[in-house]
């Protein structure tokens, strides 16, 4: 099956996020009031083949831990959806 995976990589809550702080300040400067916090992370979209959903999730988790996120400073969350069944030849 073909899956579409969305991987959200965000700075850990305890890690200072200079980009988020700068964006928040920018919003305030533009007059957008009430923005208490902005956290800036990465959004990755992967398309992958996998026999089933559980296998796909396990592989994505391995990818996230190995490369996509740095556990010292980042958390990640994965969402996947099946986009189509592979048609048998």
């Amino acid at each position: 099956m073909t899956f579409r995976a969305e991987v959200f990589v965000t700075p850990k809550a305890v890690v200072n996020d200079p980009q988020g702080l700068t964006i928040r300040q920018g919003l305030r400067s533009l007059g957008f009031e009430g923005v208490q916090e902005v956290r800036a992370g990465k959004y990755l979209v992967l398309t992958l083949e996998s026999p089933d959903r559980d296998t796909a999730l396990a592989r994505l988790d391995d990818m996230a831990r190995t490369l996509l996120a740095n556990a010292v400073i980042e958390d990640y969350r994965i969402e996947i959806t099946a986009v189509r069944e592979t048609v048998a030849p």
Partner: protein
Amino acid sequence: MKWGILVFPGTWSDRDCMHALTTVLGQSARYVDHRETELSEFDAVILPGGFSYGDHLRCGAVARFAPVMEAVTRFADRGGLVLGICNGFQILQEARLLPGALLRNDSCEFRCEWVHLRVERAESPFTRECRPGQVLRIPISHGEGNFYADPDTLQSLEQGGQVAFRYSTPDGRVTGDANPNGSLRNIAGIVNARGNVLGMMPHPERACEPLLGGADGLWILRSALGTLVAA
């Protein structure tokens, strides 16, 4: 002594390192391609600064999986001297050869300027020629040099004497104003527990001749050399 200078796609300080080691210090050195897998011919290896693999995803995140990095890990495990400068420091952290991480500078700006470093530990293989508390003037050139480690790791770095350098004023005071990037506790460089792996954001290789504005980087390279000669 023979030095290996690692070159990844996007490394840019390799030639500065070569010049400092060979022309200035009279050492033997060779560039090491990122696809090489053996470092046993060298007495010390340097991971120079730059933007390996375009800094994509995170600085050093892709470089740490280059074939040569397994050799670097073996080299470090055997006690060989490993010096990571700037992007090299980031790669060593991604490879877990050094703890912590380097975040975006708190200013969100690329900072390219001369800074002062206070030598926190003068008995390490990379600082043995220095006096404790000596202040070195060395340039930085980075956008992601904001040292971070969780509280337990920070405490263990401090207690183990693994903080090599802190950003300071010219007279050695560690202040917020002297901190160019937001690094926790003004940390500019750390060594591993064994002391044979140093990572630092400032560029000692760019401060090896008065013509370039200063020669304080020689304190670090000569210390490493002294360690090798004594071994």
